[in-house]
């Protein structure tokens, strides 16, 4: 559960919400960008995502490296993806 998954930012939501829509393996979800606001996170950036929070902005090469690592984890990554893909309580699906 302590794993970070690489996600690409596809939309920054209104500033006061401090949220963004990110995509992981074709699935989209709203996540918090509170921790990376100081890094000036933008659409198209890759972030390391952990339990619904962008932890750090990473470059594309690092995102690929993290993705390879996650795919290597197999079951643990599948569980993480399944959790990521689960509908957000009370929200309309974003994808």
């Amino acid at each position: 559960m302590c794993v970070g998954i690489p996600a690409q930012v596809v939309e920054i939501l209104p500033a006061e919400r401090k949220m963004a829509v990110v995509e992981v393996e074709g699935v989209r979800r709203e996540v918090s960008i509170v921790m990376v606001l100081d890094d000036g996170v933008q659409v198209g950036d890759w972030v390391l995502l952990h339990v619904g929070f962008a932890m750090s902005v990473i470059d594309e090469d690092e995102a690929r490296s993290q993705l390879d690592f996650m795919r290597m984890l197999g079951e643990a990554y599948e569980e993480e993806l399944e959790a990521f893909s689960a509908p957000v309580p009370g929200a309309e699906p974003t994808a």
Partner: protein
Amino acid sequence: MKFVSEFRDPEAAKILIAEIEELAADQPARKFMEACGGHTHAIYRHGIESLLPESIEMVHGPGCPVCVIPMGRIDDAISIAEQDGVTMCCFGDLMRVPGGSSTLLEAKAKGADIRVVYSPLDALAIAENEPDRNVVFFAVGFETTAPSTAITVMQARERNVENFSIFCNHVTIVPPMKAILDSPGMELDGFLGPGHVSTVIGTGPYQFVSREYGLPLVTTGFEPVDILQGVAMLLRQLAEGRAEVENQYKRVVRDSGNPAALRMLGEVFELRPHFEWRGLGFIAQSALSLRDEFAGFDAEKHFALPGVRVADPKACQCGEVLKGAIRPWECKVFGTACTPETPIGTCMVSSEGACAAYFNYGRFRAKKRIPVTST
């Protein structure tokens, strides 16, 4: 070289393995601990131990936050979940962790409203959508996860969500490292520092490893080449008589960590005087609780908890595994009574646990080291 060819950068791996062999040849046997579940997983999955010289032993530390939760805290969570009107939310890998008498999964089957969520924000959303439910988030994790709980609690306060609280079990990485270094008979020669925890706390908190214990620590990434490079950097420090905190994982880990996350951690949490760790016992100032300003969101203040300390099952040697005193397969019940399907101990429950990782990947490689020729 069966596994090296599968790496992203096999040439770099070969060069590193050669360097490690050369450095190790001039040194006594070395024991390095990795204190991160992700590293444990990667080491087993890639058979990295079989690529290292026999004189180098990797010891798998308490890097999996699910694995260190004592059984009594699971019982406390179940007791909260069983109360009328309560909806308990938790991450999926907590569901099968054995408590003193049952698991959250079993409690759910008996009718408790226990829901798996991806994020603490989802638990908050449930509380907002279902104001008649008393929603409790079972918070676990090291400094990687704790900021997300802190931010969620701050949002709950901003939005006046009164039916939301946290059962806080967040722990910190440095005190157990100290406890392990202080445990009798534990002779480590260095650490591979955790990756994702360090994105939050930076490298500063590890300085005690070099200053107080005179050992090197290298914060390391998760690719096989990262881990090999981390090992090479540790060996190089030892060869040169240095004991420093180095950062191999600079592309993600900043030495100063994530200041925003640290600020929010400090605002919401304070250190508990002590906290019990599975297998390691009570460790002073090793866990977080909500500050008084956030007492309204503290489930421990809302609910009467049994708070009973439950001894680990006699057959279970998770504590010894977590301390690196024995290897997973040396546990009496490993792979027989204790398997990922029917875990006795926490190290077998989470896929990041040393036992589960070893059960899934390593058990056929344990005694068979693959000779590596570097010339």
